[in-house]
Every structure is written in C-alpha cells, then in structure tokens.
C-alpha cells in the first residue's frame, strides 16, 4: 500500500523531467531559428564596397572581427563601420565612394593594421611591395543613357579623376550621328585594371553619378569553362586536360540526318 504514492511521485518527477527537457529543447529551437533567420538576413547585403585587400564577401563576413582598426587608419575618413540603421552587416567596414572615395594611399594604411587577416595584405602586394593598384574593391560601371558624354556633350571628368588615367578608363571617339559633324568622346572602363576606388564616381558631374562602383561579384559576368580564347596561347592551355563529354539523348539513337528529317510531332497529322 505504501508503495503506490512513492511510485506515483517518481512517475510525476520523470514526467516533469521529460516535459522540462522538451520545453528547453523547444525554446532553444525557437530562439535558434529566429536568431539564424535574423543573422542570415542581415548578412545578405551584397551591394557593399569593402576596403582594399578584403577577402571574398563570404570569407570576409566570418573573418572580420569588427574592431575598426582599418577605419581608424584611414586618413581620409573613407571607411566606416556599419551601424544599426545602415542596413549593412553590422560592424563591418565599408565605404560610399560618392561621399568619400578611396584615395589609394601608396602605403595602404588600412590593410596592415587588420588583426584578423580579413584584409589580406598579400592580395595588395606585388613584388614584395605594397601596391594599391592591385586592389579590387569593385569596378566602375557607366550608365550610357545618363552619361552626358554619350549625349555628345564634352565631359571627361571621370577620365581625369581616375588614378590609373588612360588605363582603367579610356576615351573612345565615335561619329556623332545626330549632328553628323561632331565627335562623341565616350568613356570606357577596363575592368581588369579598375580598382574600384570610386574617384570617378565622386567626380561625375551628373546629379546622381552616371559612373558608379559596384562590387565585382555583382557587376561582372563569368564566361565559364566552355569558351576558350583561341588567339590566346595561355588560354588555349586549358584545352590540354580537357576531356570530351558526350551527351546521349533520344535523338542521338539514330543518325543525325534521320533525326533532322523526322517530321513526327512537328507537322499536324
């Protein structure tokens, strides 16, 4: 008789234990999912320009410790740390070239101070010397519709502002078809040289800049492996290890001619 209540109590405490554990796991899951969703959302911003030498965005987000040393080292106050309300990954450094561009210091003070390696000193080093010209912060993109040089008005503000004058931006001459007797002198950006410093965007005379910097990941395409520059000896090297890939579909069951002449399914019966 005496045994029953004790047994009940034990049962209850076991039940309580299970319920409590379930509650803990459930609440941890709830918190964890909300937390993940928020973190995923705030780190998704891709339209962001990083300091010179920054790792690829994915690696940058995990490596940057958000200490702001690069911001402090920048003599032009170009760099800022993302604040709440900026809608950018919190605490990470970025710059807005239309406000303050990167002035391309030859000694690149922002990179060597980085304690975490999120700004990679090797990526801006050439022949054992710091070389700001090898930075790839972004790439300048021109809006042909609103750039007044494309209208026929003479303007070479971006070309003149470019620290790699004549290399990153060149000016091309065309005939102005509207007047028939003038020249269009239009800027063109060479993405393989452009560092994305943004001096052109800062200098642009239109109300909203018609030449602007975008992250390279956003602005540039990728040709992929299928196309090879036959005139480029180095590029042709890629063919050496190439293997033939043969695709077999229903059509390849018969000879090519038969397949071509097969009208089945094309003509109405």
């Amino acid at each position, binding site marked *: 008789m005496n045994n029953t209540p004790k047994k009940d109590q034990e049962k209850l405490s076991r039940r309580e234990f299970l319920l409590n554990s379930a509650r803990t796991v459930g609440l941890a899951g709830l918190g964890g999912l909300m937390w993940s969703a928020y973190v995923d959302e705030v780190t998704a911003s891709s339209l962001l320009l990083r300091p010179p030498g920054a790792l690829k965005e994915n690696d940058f987000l995990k490596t940057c*410790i958000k200490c702001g040393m690069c911001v402090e080292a920048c003599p032009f106050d170009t760099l800022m740390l993302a*604040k709440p*309300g900026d809608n950018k990954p919190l605490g990470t450094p970025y710059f807005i070239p239309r406000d303050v561009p990167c002035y391309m210091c030859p000694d690149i003070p922002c990179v060597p101070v980085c*304690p975490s390696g999120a700004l990679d000193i090797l990526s801006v080093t050439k022949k054992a010397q710091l070389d700001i010209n090898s930075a790839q912060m972004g790439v300048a993109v021109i809006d042909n519709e609103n750039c007044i040089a494309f209208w026929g008005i003479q303007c070479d503000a971006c070309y003149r502002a470019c620290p790699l004058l004549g290399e990153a931006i060149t000016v091309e001459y065309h005939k102005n078809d509207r007047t028939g007797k003038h020249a269009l002198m239009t800027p063109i950006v060479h993405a393989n040289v452009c560092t994305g410093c943004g001096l052109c965007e800062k200098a642009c005379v239109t109300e909203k800049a018609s030449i602007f910097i975008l992250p390279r990941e956003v602005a540039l395409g990728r040709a992929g492996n299928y196309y090879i520059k036959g005139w480029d000896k180095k590029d042709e090297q890629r063919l050496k290890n190439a293997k033939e890939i043969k695709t077999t579909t229903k059509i390849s069951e018969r000879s090519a001619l038969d397949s071509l002449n097969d009208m089945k399914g094309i003509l109405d019966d």
Partner: protein
Amino acid sequence: MISKNKYLILRRLSQISIMFLYIIANVWGINILTGNLSSSLLLDFVPLSDPYAVLQMFTAGAVISIDLLIGAAIIVLFYMFIGGRAFCSWVCPVNMITDLSNYIRRKAGFNTIQKKQPASRKISYYAIVISLMISFGLGVTAFEFISPVSMIHRGIIFGLGFGWAAMVVIFLFDLFVLKNGWCGYICPLGGFYSALARFSFIKVNHDSDKCTECMKCKEVCPEVQVLHMIGKKSMKVLSGECTNCARCIEVCDDDALNFSIKKFIGERK
C-alpha cells in the same frame, strides 16, 4: 560616502576611461588603446581580442590569424586566472545601463511587485551553444552580428546610429521584464566569462561570524545565486558567475565581505 562607494567609483572610472582611450585613438589618433572591445591593440604593440568572438570565427570556419590567437589568449589567461568575470562589471559599458535599471528597480520598488524571476540563469550557456551552432551552420559569427554589447561599445567609439535603441531595449528589459535580465540571464558573452572565471584568484570572501544577516548584499547583488553562503558558512564566493563588482562588499556594514586571493588548489565547494 566615498569609502562606501569606493569600488563603484573605481568601476565607473575603469569603464569610462577604457571607452575614453578608444575614443581618443579613433578621433585624435592618440594610440594608447586602439580598436574596440572586439579586438584592440595596446600601446601599438600588445594585441587583445575577444576570445568568444574568436571562438565563433573558428566555428564559422575562418582562418584565425596569429594576432587574434595571441590577443584572445592574453584575455583568456587574464580573466581565467586573475580577474574572474571582471569584464562584465569593470569593462563592459552595458553594465552602466543595467546597473541603472537595477538601481531604479530597487528605489522605485519594482522588486516588491515582482519577486520571482521566471527564467533560468542557464539561458546564457544555452545561448553560447546555439551561437556556435549557428556560426557553424551559416559560416558567420552569429552573436557578433546581433550583439547589443558590440553595438554599444562600437557605437560609443565609431558612431551610434540606431544603437541607442539597443541601449533602450536592454534598459527597459532589465527594468520591467527581468531583474538583471540581460547580464544575468541572457548575454552569452557574460556566460562565456562565467565559465572561464571559476578558476580565478580574486574572489570575494564571506566571514559568517561577522555576518548579521541583514541581507543587504543579496539585495544589491546582480548574480544573487552566488551568495548562497551568506550567514551560513565562511567561505569564498567561488562561482564564476560572480562579476567581482564588489557591491556586496560596499553595502556590508559588518565587514563580513571582502576581496581575497584564492589559493591555487584545494578551495572548492
């Protein structure tokens, strides 16, 4: 009056002067202490890094630089063997906000209408585990992107943005939702230092022979569970959750609480 608030004044001095050193480094380039609480450089030479942030970076899959490893090791060794959880009450600027909430709570009598706190002190440890899981899963430092602690110290040094909202949220949460809610229950950084602090030398010592059981210490203590021995047993406050804030020492009129140095081995619960 001053001697009764000696440690409080020292703590405020410590918290404010650390922030001040960071600010003068950022604004005027006086490099005594550069960076922020996530990672800094002392006297242009000694690296100091937030070990919890480094741990998250590691689980996120980042390559940890030597500077960060040394910096985190210095901080870990200091708090682990000397300071205990002193970061929370002597360095972290959030402490000033939560102390204010706590002060208003006591003076206005909110504690008398809400005596029990419906939450577990273990939440911060769960938060550590969850943060590491999210860091691993998403490949970003999970807590660093939402941390109000970083938002606030970064905000004070580099510009606040909407960071003031984080301050208000913590203030109101601690005032109306949960007594000592942020620092005592939720903050995973506090939990991280609690876990480290078990082994530290500097501990508060309780002399129960002198104790008159007025319970003033339990009223002010932000981590009241660590004072379980008051009036019962003469021993040191060994729990790592004690922040070494010394408020209990100050409010004690009977000299029953004092700082002491723990022996290296043999003093356990």
